[in-house]
């Protein structure tokens, strides 16, 4: 790093976040690929993709001078290469090792954020231990390799260098004149090459450097001859030079190249008469060898054989192995962008061009502005209506339609498939199951279901907890399962789908289910339910979400610390979502999380009660029926019932619920709301129609208010409250007491109500 300039440093500071986020994606892919490989060991496409991911991380880390990452990834790559070449099989132990290495890599990349952070001795030891295990694993392959070589093989003998752990290549690189101007620094590049292995000899060929008076200081005239002791393949070595490849004379000689090869190398570079001397000086070959080589070459030429171009020689020499062929094949597939390439590989490598990376906060600020635009647009439309000028109203209506389209389009930008979050759990399930000695088949359904990015981010933790819980408490040990006539392998399914404007995430397991007796006993013990009182079945299950509840008989480090489920519920409710648990004892349980698609703007249905305005999420509104006040007598909480097509519909009165002290009009409307599997009605005075609702949080004072999920500012500047259809539904079904606070306090002080 010390050789970097200020400009380099500032570039690195700017580009580093992008590197980190990309590296993290690669690491994520690595993990997914490793896990996929466990199900399909030996899949060459997956192995190749795996190798590419690791290589990309190493390559870009090299550019940023992250030596720790480069050095460590190098060892991982060596092992992956062995796997790819089929010299090694991916055993579960090896897979675990690679996953651990991936974790290490993740840590290292995270550390890259502050470059100066010193490593603790413990971290160093840990990494050294991993490297040792990697080398041991890779070395194992060498031994196996040597063994097969020793056996009389029918195949042509592999390159002799394969028997050693490291191989000494010879690299000859003449940098093009434009190298500096293209922003490349041979010094940094050579440092990167050092990361591939060790460089026992390096000579800078300065023959082409002109004296100062004839020098263009920004043109590069440097050439290098170096030996490179590495396990890396030809493709990797050449890859190191990929950024300067276009104007760099690069020749890579296989380990064990004969003096004739060097001779041809010299021939291939006619404008460098001193190359022979340099090669000798660099220790690549001895002078005697070189002269012998040159003589052979000349004799061959004299005998009439045309000297073949170096490239051809390199590819036909005995030492050229599968690596060269692979490299060539890789290039071909890349160049042709074959559609036939298997989906995994294509998904990982092919899609790059079709995406733009945008910082999330830029998007957020656009969405904030959009919220303001929606409100301002509504205000303008209102004013236009008041003027009663047809053309103005029409113009405003047109603007309104456009705003709505922009709104939908912009919110769509924030939508991400939930599958990425889901697939993170593969690893959790794998490790947790292994730790608990359970055999678990993990299934993901509906990973393509999209929802708002901020929701996705905030749902990950609660989901993690629920998944762990299902593994820990839900699924039984294999022996226990077999004893109950179930397959030994437990099944855990994570699914997602859209359902009437919200997303439903389900966590399904076929474990022992929830033991109602034990839940109840615990609830009595903890005083969550009055001793001896037995609530209805579904309410018993809900108790597991109460604070301070835990049924685990032994506290494991995975779950069972009693801080879990109530936090899960709170987190989900903070996202305006709900969580419900269903369970059949002995058959398994199902946890359903219902979340709104977005947290920012919804389509609302605006209604008025007295002087107050309320908004229902439009998706929840089924129909509106007309009614008369005083049709039925309200109960103590102001609930009534009406008959709707032969069925009894509970109806809530906003007046009673929130203590609005205005007289009820003669004719009222009942808005029929569907919440989950129930329907209920809400009595309102006037229907004000569809309304684009920018959701603002409630002021702190009103957060304890039940049945409200937020507020919104109308075009007129009035504040409307957004109703939480689920909690109102529970109230309608009589499951909880009504909201306690009077809304009258709120009516006087709109300003304090909204916290924006």
């Amino acid at each position: 790093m010390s050789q970097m300039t200020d400009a380099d440093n500032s570039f690195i500071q700017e580009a580093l976040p992008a590197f980190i986020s990309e590296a993290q994606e690669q690491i994520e892919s690595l993990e997914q690929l490793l896990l996929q490989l466990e199900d399909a060991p030996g899949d060459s496409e997956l192995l190749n993709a795996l190798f590419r991911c690791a290589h990309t991380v190493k390559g870009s880390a090299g550019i940023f001078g992250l030596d720790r990452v480069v050095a460590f990834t190098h060892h991982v790559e060596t092992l992956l290469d062995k796997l790819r070449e089929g010299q090694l099989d991916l055993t579960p132990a090896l897979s675990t090792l690679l996953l651990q290495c991936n974790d290490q890599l993740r840590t290292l990349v995270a550390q890259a954020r502050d470059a100066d952070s010193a490593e603790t001795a413990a971290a160093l030891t840990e990494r050294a231990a991993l490297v040792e295990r990697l080398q041991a694993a890779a070395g194992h392959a060498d031994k196996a390799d040597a063994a097969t070589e020793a056996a009389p093989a029918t195949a042509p003998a592999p390159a002799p260098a394969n028997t050693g752990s490291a191989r000494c290549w010879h690299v000859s690189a003449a940098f093009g004149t434009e190298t500096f101007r293209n922003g490349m620094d041979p010094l940094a590049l050579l440092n990167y090459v050092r990361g591939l292995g060790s460089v026992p000899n390096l000579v800078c060929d300065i023959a082409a450097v002109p004296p100062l008076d004839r020098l263009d200081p920004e043109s590069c005239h440097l050439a290098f001859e170096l030996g490179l002791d590495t396990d890396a393949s030809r493709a990797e070595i050449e890859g190191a030079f990929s950024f300067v490849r276009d104007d760099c004379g690069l020749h890579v000689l296989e380990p064990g190249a004969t003096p004739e090869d060097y001779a041809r190398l010299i021939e291939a570079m006619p404008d460098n008469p001193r190359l022979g001397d340099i090669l000798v000086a660099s220790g690549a070959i001895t002078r005697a060898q070189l002269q012998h080589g040159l003589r052979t070459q000349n004799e061959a030429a004299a005998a009439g054989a045309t000297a073949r171009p170096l490239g051809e020689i390199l590819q036909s020499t005995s030492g050229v192995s599968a690596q060269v062929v692979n490299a060539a094949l890789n290039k071909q597939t890349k160049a042709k962008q074959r559609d036939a390439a298997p989906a995994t590989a294509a998904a990982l490598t092919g899609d790059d061009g079709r995406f733009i990376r945008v910082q999330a906060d830029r998007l957020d600020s656009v969405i904030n502005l959009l919220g303001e635009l929606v409100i301002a647009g509504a205000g303008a439309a209102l004013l236009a209506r008041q003027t009663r000028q047809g053309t103005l109203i029409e113009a405003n209506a047109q603007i309104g339609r456009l705003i709505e389209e922009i709104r939908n389009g912009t919110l769509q930008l924030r939508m991400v498939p939930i599958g990425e979050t889901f697939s993170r759990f593969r690893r959790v399930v794998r490790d947790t199951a292994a730790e608990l000695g359970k055999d678990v088949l993990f299934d993901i359904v509906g990973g393509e279901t999209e929802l708002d990015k901020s929701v996705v981010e905030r749902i990950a933790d609660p989901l993690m907890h629920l998944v762990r819980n299902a593994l820990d408490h839900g699924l039984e040990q294999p022996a226990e399962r077999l004893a109950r006539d179930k397959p030994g392998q437990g099944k855990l399914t994570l699914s997602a789908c859209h359902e009437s404007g919200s997303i439903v995430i389900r966590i399904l397991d076929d474990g022992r289910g929830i033991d109602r007796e034990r839940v109840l006993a615990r609830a009595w013990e903890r005083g969550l339910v009055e001793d001896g009182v037995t609530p209805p079945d579904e309410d018993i299950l809900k108790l597991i979400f109460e604070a301070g509840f835990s049924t685990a008989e032994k506290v494991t480090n995975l779950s069972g610390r009693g801080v879990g489920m109530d936090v899960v519920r709170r987190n989900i409710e903070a996202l305006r979502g709900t969580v419900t648990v269903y369970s059949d004892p002995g058959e398994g349980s199902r946890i359903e999380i219902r979340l709104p698609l977005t947290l920012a703007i919804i389509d609302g249905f605006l209604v008025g009660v007295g002087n107050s305005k309320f908004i229902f999420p439009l998706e929840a509104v089924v129909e509106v029926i007309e009614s008369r006040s005083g049709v039925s007598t309200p109960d103590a909480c102001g609930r009534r019932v009406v008959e709707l097509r032969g069925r009894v519909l509970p109806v809530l009165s906003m007046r009673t619920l929130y203590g609005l002290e205005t007289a009820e009009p003669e004719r009222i409307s009942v808005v029929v709301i569907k919440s989950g599997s129930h329907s209920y009605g809400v009595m309102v005075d006037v229907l004000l129609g569809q309304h684009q609702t920018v959701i603002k949080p409630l002021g702190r004072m009103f957060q304890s208010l039940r049945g409200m999920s937020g507020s919104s500012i109308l075009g007129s500047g009035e504040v409307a409250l957004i109703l939480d259809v689920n909690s109102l539904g529970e109230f309608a079904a009589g499951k909880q007491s009504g909201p306690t606070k009077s809304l009258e306090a709120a009516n006087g002080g709109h300003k304090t109500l909204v916290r924006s």
Partner: protein
Amino acid sequence: MAKRSKTSAALPAAAPVASALALPAELTIYTVGELHPQWLTWLGAGPAARPAEGPTEVQAEVQAAAVEQVDAAGLQLLLSLQIALAERGRSLHIQAPSAVLRSGCAALGLGTWLQAQMTEGARA
């Protein structure tokens, strides 16, 4: 170390040296464009402009203690200076190269070259 003190002791005897060239803190692609004309002027002002000096090697002193950043372009400029001096029958003497310059040279395979530029003065 002993070698270098000998060098500096030999300095006054090494005679009509133009004032030593001080290398800047930054010897990289970002400064070479600026340094090149300066160094050329310095080169022109040196004793090689007077061929009467004859074949005796004349040292060109370069102060290298201040170098804090190097890259290949910067080192190439230094190399080029040495080549130009050699053409004029002079040798480059790099005084007290900083650690950065040393490691930069080593990384570029110029370790022995640098060593030669440090000791050559002693020979003269």
